[in-house]
Structure formats: C-alpha cells, structure tokens
C-alpha cells in the first residue's frame, strides 16, 4: 500500500465516506494570508480532507423539520481526521493537526473546509449556498488535517457536480433550478451551457435558517431582553420557546450546527442513496 492509500484507509475505516489530499501550495491562489495551512502549521506539506455523511435517508423523509434541526450532523469526518492524525504522527512520524475549522471571529473560521474539499478533489461548489457537492454522494460534511508529511495530492475535479443534468434542463425550461426555487431568499444564480454562470449567496440570511437556534439567536434574543423595560414582557421573552430553544442549542452543540436543509432536500445529486425501503 502506498502512504496515500494507508492514510486514506485509516480515514475510511474510522467512518469517512471519502478522503482526498491537497498540496498546501494549492491554497495560496485564493486564500488570504493568515488562513492558509502553512500559516497554521510550519513546514506543512499536505492537507488531507475527510468527507462524512449528513442526515440519514430516513431523516430526509421526516415531515418535521425540527428533527433535522437537531440530528442533521454526525461529525464522523472529525473522528476520521483524528484517526488519520494519530496514524501520521504515531506510525509515520510526521506532525499532524486537525485543521481549525470552527469560527473564531464572528462567522470566519481560521481555515475553509469547503475550499480544502475542492482542492482535494472531493467536490465542487454548487448553486445551493456554494455547498460543496460530491458528484457521487451529494452533500457531505468536511474536516481536514494539516501535516508535514509529503503526500501525492489528488486533483480538483474537472467536471462540476452542479448543475445536475436535470437541473440544467430545468433551468433551460423555466429559468430556475430546484434549489434556487425553494430558497430565493438566500440564493440567486444563472446557468448557461450546462454550467454555473453566476451564483450569489446571502450568508447572513442563511445563518438565520441554518442556525436558527444557536449563538446568533441567543445574542439577538438577549439584546431584545436587556432593552425591554417592561418587566412582564421581559419575563415572557426570557421564557419564550424561541429563547429556550436558543439556550438549549448552546448546551447541546449538535442542536446548533445545521438546521436548514431545504436547498439540499431538493437537490438531485446523490439522491439515489436516499432511496431505501
């Protein structure tokens, strides 16, 4: 087995659906200084990206959106990254760290997992919130490790996963695609000759949907509460369902990660894996 195959095998065994490798040099073109793998780990040579499953097929079929709000994320790709880091340090004697992906200043993470997935050949940007779609599995969640281990990289995909041929045909017919139609509030875009021509994504509006109950809603609610002079109204706000759910999502982090799937629900890429008995 090559080193690349060994590392990937460890990641797959730990629960990743896909694993890809990108060279650190590839990040220089589009990533600002301070957010590149080399800025994070001196001597970094490779970034290994693991993609993990999203909701189960059964979860997609649940008519109650609240269920997916608190069960949509498995975090398995992070386990895979840790397993690969342990292997790279323990067996291959090279430094490896989990790439810091959680936001540390507002909505900005130290390093983009989406971009890492693109460069590692695991998917391409879509019209739907620029989510990286794997051509086989569709929506996956990504985590990455940075390592000083030199690895033969995978290539970014030559063919984009989006638009799906069905979506391109739909756009030709009626000027929209399933995702654009279901969520015009956050998304806008055009398709030409079967390729994305333009795509706009309102991340802040999407935040109110993808993280309805969480850090943001807690801050919004708290500001209203502290600004409310009427004691009784303040009381109803503090004990409201909205504020209660916001606090709950702080306590159970799984409740706060991903809470809107509507653009992905209607996306045909990877849908075959959601058809079970």
């Amino acid at each position, binding site marked *: 087995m090559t080193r690349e195959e060994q590392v990937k095998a460890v990641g797959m065994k730990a629960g990743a659906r896909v694993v890809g490798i990108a060279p650190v040099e590839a990040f220089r073109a589009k990533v*600002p200084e301070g957010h590149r793998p080399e800025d994070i780990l001196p001597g970094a040579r490779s970034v290994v990206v693991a993609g993990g499953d999203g909701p189960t097929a059964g979860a997609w079929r649940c008519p*109650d959106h609240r269920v997916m709000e608190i069960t949509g994320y498995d975090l398995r790709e992070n386990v895979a990254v840790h397993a690969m880091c342990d292997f790279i340090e323990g067996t291959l004697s090279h430094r490896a760290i989990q790439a810091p992906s959680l936001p540390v*200043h*507002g909505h900005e993470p130290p390093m983009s997992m989406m971009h890492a997935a693109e460069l590692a050949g695991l998917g391409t940007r879509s019209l739907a919130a620029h989510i990286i779609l794997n051509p086989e599995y569709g929506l996956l969640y990504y985590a990455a490790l940075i390592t000083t281990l030199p690895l033969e990289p995978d290539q970014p995909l030559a063919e984009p996963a989006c638009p799906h041929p069905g979506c391109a045909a739909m756009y030709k017919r009626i000027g929209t695609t399933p995702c654009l139609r279901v969520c015009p509030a956050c998304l806008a875009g055009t398709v030409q000759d079967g390729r*994305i021509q333009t795509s706009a*994504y309102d991340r802040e509006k999407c935040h*109110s949907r993808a993280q*309805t109950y969480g850090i943001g809603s807690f801050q919004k609610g708290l500001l209203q509460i502290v600004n409310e002079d009427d004691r009784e109204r303040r009381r109803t706000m503090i004990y409201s369902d909205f504020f209660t759910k916001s606090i709950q999502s702080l306590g159970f982090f799984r409740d706060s990660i991903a809470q809107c799937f509507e653009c992905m*629900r209607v996306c045909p890429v990877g849908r075959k894996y959601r058809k079970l008995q």
Partner: protein
Amino acid sequence: MAVFKLDPEVYKCYKDEVLKLCNSFQKIDQPGLSDKQIAERLGLDERTVTEIRCVAERDCYSLDEWEKAIEFKRKATLEWSALALKRPDLKPE
C-alpha cells in the same frame, strides 16, 4: 482594556462597507477579503474591522428574519413531504 468595545459611531460609519467586502454576501469564485485586507483598504486597524464585522454579521437582519426562517422551514419541509412521499395530507395551509 479587558473587553474590546466598539464605538457605535465607528460601527455605523463602516458596517455596510465591511459587510460588502467580507464573506457575508458571496459570489461564486469571488472570495471575500480577510479582516486584514479590509483594514488595509479602509484605513482601519485589523482589530476594529474584526469587531465591526462581528457586530454587523449579527446586526444584518432583525429578529423578524428568524421568525421567517422558522416558518420557511416548516412549510418547505411539509411541501416536499407532501410531494415526494405522496402525502397530500401533509401539504401546509
């Protein structure tokens, strides 16, 4: 100072520009600028830009948008379920 407190006047002056330049409103293949890059462009220090951006991201939409989000998801899920699961009884009002 223990906790960085942004001057509201500075915030009001720069918030729209910072939001425009960062990753809040994305266009595919046009990455937004980092706080450092925005600072250089606007002639501010990086920490001030970070603070403006953090407040602006949260301030961008009122709590009404959260109300709309809850209703949007409720309806969209039910509409899809009614269609895909062939359950017209689930179609929202």
